[in-house]
């Protein structure tokens, strides 16, 4: 094997694998530190997430959210942008969905209402990303800082809207009324039941197909369209992009709109699929989780599907740990997210010098 081939194997496969393993080992150390046997914990976690129908349903349901936010972060990464605003874009996207699902004519067919509600999520998510994008492109403010600020603005906005506008008269809790029935995405167990198969009830709903659809769409868009090429080119080298006639400012705005729109889809799973109403903090943690998923999945839709499934396992398995063990709660998943972001992101190159020295040394030429 040539040295170049070996290097690409190291960068493409070995490094990410080692990084993920390190994050797992570090989580194991945290378990030991709090007096929990990591192997025992892993068994409980895996059984809880994959061992039975209902658990698997929950795992896939959580994974669906992570696919949306993971794709959102990844698309922005390809243009060299770091979108920390997924949390806020998902939140406001939920408002877009709710406005359609609450106020549209209930006599309309689900075939019209559901796509409209999904478009509402896409549109509002994109809207929440377009201002930071515009400011980065045309006013020179940094997208990371502005998207952080927009997360806080989103939560202020949503509290205001839920408390003062969407809350039903006489209700105490800040949540909207029920969505109209035709906007509900059917549960997978109901679909199976209608074909005569009985599977356990879980929140898993048709959103998972939407997630798969958008994963394929993002793959096609990034690697098989003109715009996708332009985005990746601008992400690799701004100057080269300019020379080849690409307008990087436009790229920033378009990419962030797509990124925000994808994050805006969290609501279709959480709201249209499961809760059928808008409520506070339904998005909690998925935006930041998306960063971990994108980093772990190397910003490729297939990688993201795998990473999202893994985080689904952790979320659902974490709930099981919470239930089974006294010393640990599902917040261990948050620790794990942090470790994944640290080792797959910040410390991405930790093992590179060692791996290169052993597997692809520069040969001394005589």
């Amino acid at each position: 094997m040539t040295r170049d081939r070996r290097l690409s194997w190291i960068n493409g496969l070995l490094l990410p694998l080692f990084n993920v393993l390190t994050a797992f080992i570090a989580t194991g150390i945290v378990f030991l530190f709090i007096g929990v046997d990591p192997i025992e914990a892993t068994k409980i976690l895996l059984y809880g997430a994959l061992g039975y129908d209902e658990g698997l349903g929950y795992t896939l349901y959580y994974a669906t959210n992570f696919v949306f936010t993971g794709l959102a972060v990844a698309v922005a990464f390809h243009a060299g942008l770091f979108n920390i605003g997924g949390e806020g874009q998902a939140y406001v996207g939920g408002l877009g969905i709710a406005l359609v699902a609450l106020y549209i004519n209930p006599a309309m067919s689900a075939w019209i209402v559901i796509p409209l509600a999904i478009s509402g999520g896409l549109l509002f998510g994109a809207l929440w990303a377009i201002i930071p994008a515009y400011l980065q492109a045309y006013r020179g403010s940094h997208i990371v800082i502005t998207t952080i600020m927009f997360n806080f603005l989103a939560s202020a906005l949503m509290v205001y809207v839920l408390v003062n506008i969407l809350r039903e008269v006489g209700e105490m809790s800040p949540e909207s009324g029920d969505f109209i029935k035709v906007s509900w995405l059917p549960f997978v167990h109901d679909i199976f039941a209608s074909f005569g198969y009985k599977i356990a009830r879980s929140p898993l709903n048709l959103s998972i197909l939407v997630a798969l659809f958008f994963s394929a769409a993002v793959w096609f868009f990034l690697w098989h369209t003109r715009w996708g090429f332009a985005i990746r080119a601008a992400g690799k080298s701004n100057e080269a992009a300019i020379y080849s006639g690409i307008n990087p400012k436009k790229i920033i705005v378009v990419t962030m709109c797509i990124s925000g729109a994808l994050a805006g889809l969290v609501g279709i799973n959480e709201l249209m699929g499961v809760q059928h109403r808008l409520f506070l903090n339904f998005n909690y943690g998925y935006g930041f989780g998306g960063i971990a998923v994108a980093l772990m999945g190397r910003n490729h839709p297939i990688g993201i599907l795998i990473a999202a499934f893994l985080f689904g396992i952790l979320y659902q398995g974490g709930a099981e740990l919470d239930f089974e063990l006294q010393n640990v709660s599902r917040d261990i998943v948050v620790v794990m997210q942090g470790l994944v972001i640290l080792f797959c992101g910040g410390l991405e190159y930790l093992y590179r010098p060692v791996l290169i020295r052993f597997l692809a040394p520069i040969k001394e030429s005589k």
Partner: protein
Amino acid sequence: MSDFFLTAVLTLDASVRVCVPLIFAAMAGLFAERSGVVDIGLEGKLLMSAFVAASAASVFGSPWLGLIAGMFASSVLAMIHGFASITYKGNQIVSGVAINILASGLTMILTLAWFKRGGITPTLQGDERFLSITLPGVDIIDHIPFLGVIYRELISGHNILVYLAFAIVPVVWWVVFRTRFGLQLRAVGENPKAVDTAGLSVEGLRYKALLIGGILCGIGGAYLSTAYNAQFTKEMTAGGGFIALAALIFGKWHPYRVLAACFLFAFLQALAIRLQGVIIPGIGEIPVQLIDATPYILTIILLAGFIGKAVPPKASAQPYIKEL
């Protein structure tokens, strides 16, 4: 004495208390960013320190030991940030995000493991926390109208960390603008290559800056859980680290301006609490959320260059790669 005056003084007093962790975190960020390392992880360091300080203060019965433990914990996180972003030249923003999430998860896991309670530490009793200090002369000045109230409510009666926060700002200014280290620090944030050429260690300077930041954030976090409150509670920093980051930008990386921004943002928070449900004649009720959001809106507008211009240190967010 008019009620309005007393209310105004009390609101300012509340602003002072809210302001303290912002000052420590913003000064921490100032060192990091002046050295060319973007520090998104202020929030996580505050949170971690708040938790560790409250735990240590409760276990050892001393707020001072709590403070030291808090500073240590926050510095460890700062060094992880340094290890990733300085030594391994990773993305500074990514490792900052990692620190925030890690702190959020670890504090929850450890409260449960150590104290059998999810997200809180035991309440600190009596002198396990920093108590307020009554400055001398309160009784004498109290009789003077206006000044008496200001002295009693606003200036006296805070705990030692509050005074430390306000005292540290001129010290930061002096270090950054009047010492050799400060000059090197600013140089490494603007032009690391020049610093390297002069035979100084870019990495060493950046590590020092992050360590100072870690210690400062540690004090801010300890203040939250052992002075302002008497225990750690889940996510008690509530975005304070990000407000500090906003103040840092709003104050254009200059200690005094940053202090002013911290105070402005703290005042807005204090005002939001006071204005809750109050109907102002002619305007009606101002939504609390709008006041809460104001620091972020102001920072966005400033960053966009609509009111002045905030230009960060030139080399910020770029790892320094030595030419061989």
